């Protein structure tokens, strides 16, 4: 049995005057344990909606997502999420942001503290444990957000363009760090991005979505060994191939 199973999921948004928008159309996908899957596609292809359905923040109009056989009915700490926007609670210090989920679970204070230290160390922010989010740079905030999600020890980590607002250099550094964390924790990661470069650098498998209605146009396995060399010829080949697929996905004939 696969870890996460997306079974014929569709999502229709009702607009005013009876108009409807089909955001996702008949999406099916099986995701293995510890797999790193990237979803790419142009804006409006429903990739964020799909992630939100898996998180339990939206409900599918039809179809079902199940985690280890159990259908998803609503948000649950088993599925951690890192948002595109800075979602840290500004009134909590870095450490208290990380322990938020543990507090909700009613974990004893001492255990919370030691968990916080573990994940602070993992993202390299030990000196900032008592800092407030406004004191952090964008990259640091997203690192805390990752630590906060991981502290809950989720089965799956959902990431919705988490590095989209960062500058190119920070973004590359964050991608490397994320891979290190992934190798260390062996989490299953579902990562939404519109950057092909990012997807090729990170993913075991890239799922290409076509826009309006959002459908899976193609999936490709990336077998390049890690760490991947962004400027290498193999990298460029995969990148070109994915870009070509994305272009053909846009054509009506393919849809």
């Amino acid at each position, binding site marked *: 049995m696969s870890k996460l199973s997306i079974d014929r999921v569709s999502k229709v948004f009702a607009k005013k005057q009876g108009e409807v928008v089909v955001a996702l159309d008949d999406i099916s996908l099986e995701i293995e344990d510890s797999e790193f899957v990237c979803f790419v596609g142009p804006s409006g292809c429903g990739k964020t909606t799909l992630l939100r359905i898996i998180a339990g923040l939206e409900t599918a109009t039809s179809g079902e997502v199940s985690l280890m056989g159990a259908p998803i009915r609503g*948000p649950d700490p088993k599925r951690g999420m890192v948002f595109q926007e800075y979602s840290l609670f*500004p009134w909590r210090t870095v450490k208290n942001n990380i322990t*938020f989920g543990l507090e909700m679970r009613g974990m004893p204070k001492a255990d919370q503290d030691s968990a916080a230290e573990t994940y602070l160390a993992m993202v390299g922010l030990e000196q900032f444990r008592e800092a407030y989010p406004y004191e952090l740079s964008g990259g640091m905030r997203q690192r805390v957000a990752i630590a906060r*999600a991981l502290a809950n020890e989720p089965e799956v980590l959902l990431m919705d363009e988490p590095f989209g607002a960062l500058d190119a250099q920070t973004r590359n550094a964050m991608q490397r760090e994320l891979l290190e964390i992934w190798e260390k924790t062996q989490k299953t990661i579902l990562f939404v991005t519109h950057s092909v470069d990012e997807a090729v650098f990170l993913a075991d498998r890239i799922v290409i979505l076509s826009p309006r209605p959002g459908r899976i146009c193609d999936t490709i396995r990336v077998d390049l060994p890690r760490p991947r060399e962004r400027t290498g010829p193999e990298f460029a080949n995969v990148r070109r191939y994915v870009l070509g697929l994305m272009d053909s996905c846009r054509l009506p004939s393919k849809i």
Partner: protein
Amino acid sequence: MRHRTRVQGKGRDNRLMDATRTHLLRNRLLPVVSIAAVAIVWQLVAQFIVQNKNLLPSVTDVLGAFLVLLESGRLASDFSTSLTHFGIGVGAALLLGIPLGMAMGWFRDMDTAANPIIEILRPVPPLAWIPFAIIWFGLTPVAAGFIVFVGAFFPVLVNTYAGFKGVPRLFVEAARVLGCTSPGRLIRHVALPAAMPSIATGIRIGMGVGWMCLVAAEFFVGGRYGLGKQLWVSYSLQQMSNVVVYMLLLGILGLAMDVVFRWYVDGKLLKWRTGEVA
């Protein structure tokens, strides 16, 4: 060469320090100068142009009256009585305004049900409640407190409501994904802290309006003591110097409460907002 650089550096340091010093001096000195200037002009106008204590008591008249009142020892009772009225009113406004504002801001049905009532009652001036305050509570501190309450309640309510309406959806979703799912916990752990800046603003405005209502409330319903009451009594005895003393005391006390409140809120409660543009 090295020596010269150091001398130059020192010179720049000194100039910098001088600049900060004059800046500080200016910031401290200017308010004192402006207050002194107003006092002098006031004194001159009262003493040489108006020449009538009842129309415009001079600074020295007011100071003299203040010293007499201070010696009589009744100011303490006036203070504590006024603060009692104020405390009853503001306390009740917080106790009712914050929970109601939270409920209306969070639950749509509460909002729809309560909003029309609030919108009709809100424009009614607090002083229009004086007749009912007297009928319901008699000539008691509670009646005066009730008027303060009416003044303070709506700013507290409306700002709490706005704060809860404005809780970013992102924070709520982030919390839900982390396992904070029931409405009670979301309110306690997300909405309340997120809305705190707005609630604090509401309390501050409410305290200001409540303080203004205090004088009028004491005119009509106060007992023997109270700053507002004494202002009124002094007027009826044509002791206009005393009227000015009570006016100034009301101003200074109101300012002091606002300063303390802001110090507490900005320094403790909302420390996390430092550096954010409000």
